[in-house]
């Protein structure tokens, strides 16, 4: 009974585990969207609709903000769709055991989670964009002139933040996961060039260079390059290299931390 089994490729097991995640996400799609897109959508309502209506901020602001909000929903969903399951998976009963027993190299189980995080990031970003358009109305300067770039930025951003999710989900003690949002995610959002372009920070040079350590900056700026080319943004090659480096660093650290938990 084993000879036929011996030839099964790791890719097949990988695909089966990915299918498992897709099944679970599909079943919980509503709570998934609520968890990851309510915040960006509420920002749209306040900053894209209410404040411009009151005349407190100029209408052009939305053009700067929308790419940032897409990056934000991508980030939130990618980080959470890896970190939260990791915490349950390695929790009291170690639900992940049934996947760790799969006849594939164990790091692939973590890589699968990252692929799943990228897919969920795509879904969240694709959901927020039409919502924003609906709430804000016509957004001056928004154009889909470079779809491949849009996809590339979403992919790389999703990978970077899923890998961060792997690191946080396996590296932080479960009871401190609430801290993850207040200490890591919240500052990342505020200094992630979501509501203002990086160039705007010329006014505060110290901060301008400090935020370069924040990977969300590159996702936001990349989104600007892809959908609002008229707004000042970082050069695309810089964004791409930065996101690749970020992904590599988080992936390396995340895999190390994952393996420590998976095999003792």
């Amino acid at each position, binding site marked *: *009974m*084993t000879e036929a089994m011996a030839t099964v490729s*790791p890719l097949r097991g990988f695909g089966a585990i990915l299918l498992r995640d897709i*099944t*679970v996400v599909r079943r919980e799609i509503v709570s998934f969207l609520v968890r990851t897109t309510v915040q960006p959508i509420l920002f749209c309502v306040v900053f894209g609709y209410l404040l411009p209506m009151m005349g407190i901020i100029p209408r052009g602001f939305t053009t700067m903000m929308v790419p940032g909000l897409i990056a934000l929903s991508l980030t939130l969903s990618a980080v959470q769709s890896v970190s939260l*399951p990791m915490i349950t998976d390695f929790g009291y*009963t170690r639900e992940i055991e049934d996947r760790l*027993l799969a006849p594939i190299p164990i790091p692939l189980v973590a890589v699968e989670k990252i692929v799943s995080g990228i897919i969920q990031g795509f879904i969240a970003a694709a959901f927020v964009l039409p919502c924003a358009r609906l709430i804000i109305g016509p957004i001056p300067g928004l154009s889909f002139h470079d779809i491949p770039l849009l996809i590339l930025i979403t992919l790389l951003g999703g990978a970077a933040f899923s890998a961060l999710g792997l690191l946080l989900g396996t590296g932080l003690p479960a009871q401190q996961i609430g801290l993850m949002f207040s200490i890591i995610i919240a500052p990342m959002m505020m200094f992630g060039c979501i509501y203002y372009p990086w160039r705007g920070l010329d006014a505060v040079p110290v901060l301008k260079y400090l935020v370069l350590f924040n990977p969300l900056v590159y996702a936001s700026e990349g989104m600007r390059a892809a959908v609002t080319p008229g707004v000042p943004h970082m050069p695309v090659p810089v964004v791409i290299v930065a996101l690749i480096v970020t992904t590599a660093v988080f992936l390396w650290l995340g895999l190390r931390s994952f393996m420590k938990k998976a*095999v*003792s």
Partner: protein
Amino acid sequence: MSAAIETRALRKVYGDKVVALDALDLTVPEGEFFGLLGPNGAGKTTTIGILTTRIRATSGEAMVAGANVATRSADARRRIGVVPQRPNPDRGLRVAENLVFHATYFGVPRAVAAKRADELLERFGIADKKDGKVDALSGGQQQRLMIARALIHEPRVLFLDEPTVGLDPQARLAFWDLLREVHGQGRTIVMTTHYMEEADQLCDRIAIIDHGKLLALDSPAKLKERAPGDTIVDVTLDGEADPLMAAAQSAPGVTRAEARGPMLRVFTARVGEAVPAILALAESGGRRVNDIHLSRPSLETLFISLTGRKLT
């Protein structure tokens, strides 16, 4: 016949000093129902962990179904099924999905997996919960789901780590029947337990381990023959037992006596004579007897004589 499991000088040290496993050599032939018996902390779970590729050995070698668990761990995993100490179903999935998806991780085609899942759920008496959530299953049902999951990819070796802890006596008996059936199909089974009776009832051979070392290895019947011929009487007193020991040694019917804190342990071939004598001894010494426990010659007395401690 080839060996399902072979370990050579297997050693595991946690941190720098906690030796969980010390030079363990085991050979389990294919088709055997093998028991690892030992008290908590004896190294049972570590052994299972290494054999199922979840724990890395510090040194030594282990082969499972022909694959070295350190260098060809994915191949080893392909050939084993594992039932954990605590049921750990995938809560994101429904009952039957737990089986079907697990099989697909092993490359079993979905349709085949679904058919096998139906059969297993039927056989294990949880077919009516098929589409329900796993949380709706009782402890015993979850444990049966775990063994179904461990079998769905048709492994050659089945590992069970204290599978009946937390089951009520009735569920335990039903679980034993299930294991006998699985073993009857020619599968190798390796089970850890700290229930003497469980090992006695089910296993072809039992390894008794403690402090990471193999103390005895044989069939239950042979091990029982090796048990000291004496019944062990543990008399718990209201204070240190030491002062009574010398007198107990020479009491009628007593072969040997030991003092362990407040417990006086007496080995005797003539219980009817020894017990009244010890009680009288305690009374004349002005001591109160809080508890008496008898262990007849059995796996348990062998275990006690080997390890110096009880199983539970």
